[in-house]
């Protein structure tokens, strides 16, 4: 049986990845470790000493609260960036994707291949963060094995819609704005640093619609316990919807771009 088209495209990405894996591992392991020690331990010690911690976080330590969100946020940053410049390179600068379409591969195969390549990146990244979390007693849990796939869904929920945007662009001038005005605000207000109930009501409602909030809730619930099946299914379906919508947008955009 022939190798599926999307897998053949993903093979190329794997070839490229062999050259840059070091950088990715630094991003997946060293960076979350620094954040964990810097913010989790440091700010955590301030919080656990005073303030209204018990009322807001309950029994959870701030370290554990923040650390579990890192699974989702680190993966989000990594795949979002991956779906911007490196993807633009394939469309515009090196034109590798146009070259592919010259072979029997279809634009739709490219969109599906993105699921594999971004999923692979997300797996490496969230796996790295999970290894870091396993170092600390309060986040060492079998739930990490469930949280890694949850973080992969998070990565794809960002990468696929962003890749569709990238595919529709001729220049990269909007890319910094995507990171600054879409990704960064979610990081800051999406429930990573404190529960979204702390936010003003309007912002809280907005947060419910972001993929990051669902991913954080899912990862946190799986690692620390306390997520019931019903809400877990709900979080997963929201993430999958984002991925499906992104994939669909990719197929349309890529087709228009590569076969005008």
């Amino acid at each position, binding site marked *: 049986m022939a190798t599926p088209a999307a897998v053949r495209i993903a093979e190329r990405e794997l070839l490229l990845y062999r050259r840059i894996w070091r950088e990715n591992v630094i991003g997946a392991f060293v*960076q979350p470790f620094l954040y964990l020690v810097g913010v989790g331990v440091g700010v955590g010690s*301030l919080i656990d000493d005073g*303030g209204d911690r018990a009322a807001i976080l309950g029994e959870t330590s701030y370290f554990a609260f923040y650390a579990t969100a890192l699974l989702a946020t680190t993966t989000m940053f990594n795949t979002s960036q991956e779906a911007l410049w490196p993807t633009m390179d394939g469309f515009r600068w090196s034109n590798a994707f146009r070259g592919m379409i010259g072979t029997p591969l279809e634009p739709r195969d490219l969109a599906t291949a993105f699921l594999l390549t971004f999923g692979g990146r997300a797996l490496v990244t969230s796996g790295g963060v999970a290894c870091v979390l396993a170092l600390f007693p309060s986040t060492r849990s079998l739930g990490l094995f469930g949280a890694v796939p949850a973080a992969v869904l998070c990565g794809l929920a960002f990468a696929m819609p962003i890749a569709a945007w990238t595919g529709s662009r001729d220049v990269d001038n909007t890319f910094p704005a995507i990171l*600054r005005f879409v990704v960064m605000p979610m990081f*800051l207000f999406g429930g990573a*640093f404190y529960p979204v109930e702390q*936010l*003003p009501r309007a912002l809280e409602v907005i947060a419910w619609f972001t993929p990051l909030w669902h991913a954080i809730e899912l990862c946190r619930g799986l690692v620390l316990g306390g997520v019931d099946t019903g809400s877990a299914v709900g979080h997963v379906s929201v993430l999958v919807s984002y991925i499906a919508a992104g994939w669909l947008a990719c197929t349309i955009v890529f087709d228009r771009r590569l076969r005008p």
Partner: protein
Amino acid sequence: MSLVTTSASVWRDIRRPQRLIERSAMVYRRNWIIILSGLFEPMLFLLSIRVGLSQLVGDVEVSGRRIAYDEFVAPGLLAAAAMNGAIFDSTMNIFHKWKASKLYDALLTTPLTAADIAVGEIGWAVLRGTIYATAFLITMAAMGMVESAWVVMAVPVAALIGFTFASLGMAATTFMRSWADFEYVPAATLPLFLFSATFYPVSAYGDWSWVVNLSPLYHGVELVRAANLGVWEAALLAHVAVLVVLGVAGTTVAARRIEKLLLS
């Protein structure tokens, strides 16, 4: 001795560094939106902390005074914003102008000198950092996070932080061989951002708190924090001295490297 004399010659070669600033102003006249969007990020950090984290943390004790957590963090964020802005301008941007567009080769055929280029480019980064710091300060004041009128001193302090990091960034950039080398830039700035008493007092490090002195950003954070509280003491001069020395050293190295590599 010879190092001192050659360093001095670099500074004697400065004639018209302001021409580089004129050039950058010309470039950004069309791209001002880029500068504007750079204001946004530190303000979002501040807002997020104020809205959510402050309540969790409660008050923090600084210089024998208890202040709200957001007031504690704001000066740290301001200093970090000055650092990040300066680093961004003095690394990627300068590498592009150096290697890709050969701008400095073209400049050196005019009466401008290597020292003019170093000082002018660093000057632009300082200017940009100062604009950010000022905007951030206005936001702080609007949110009621300002403790003392002395806080206006945070603007020159931010300029000094910008000078230090732009100089170090430009000096480091002259040693970069390809874009791949820029992976090391966040590897250096992220730990500085996180471990410079930005988010919590040095006392959190216990016996290890002396290590923080090795971070240039820490000295900047302390100065901005002192400005916000209006606490002036002689010890602050040491912080200023560290930043000035590093900045002067960075600028000197940058100018010497340009001279060595482009005027061969």
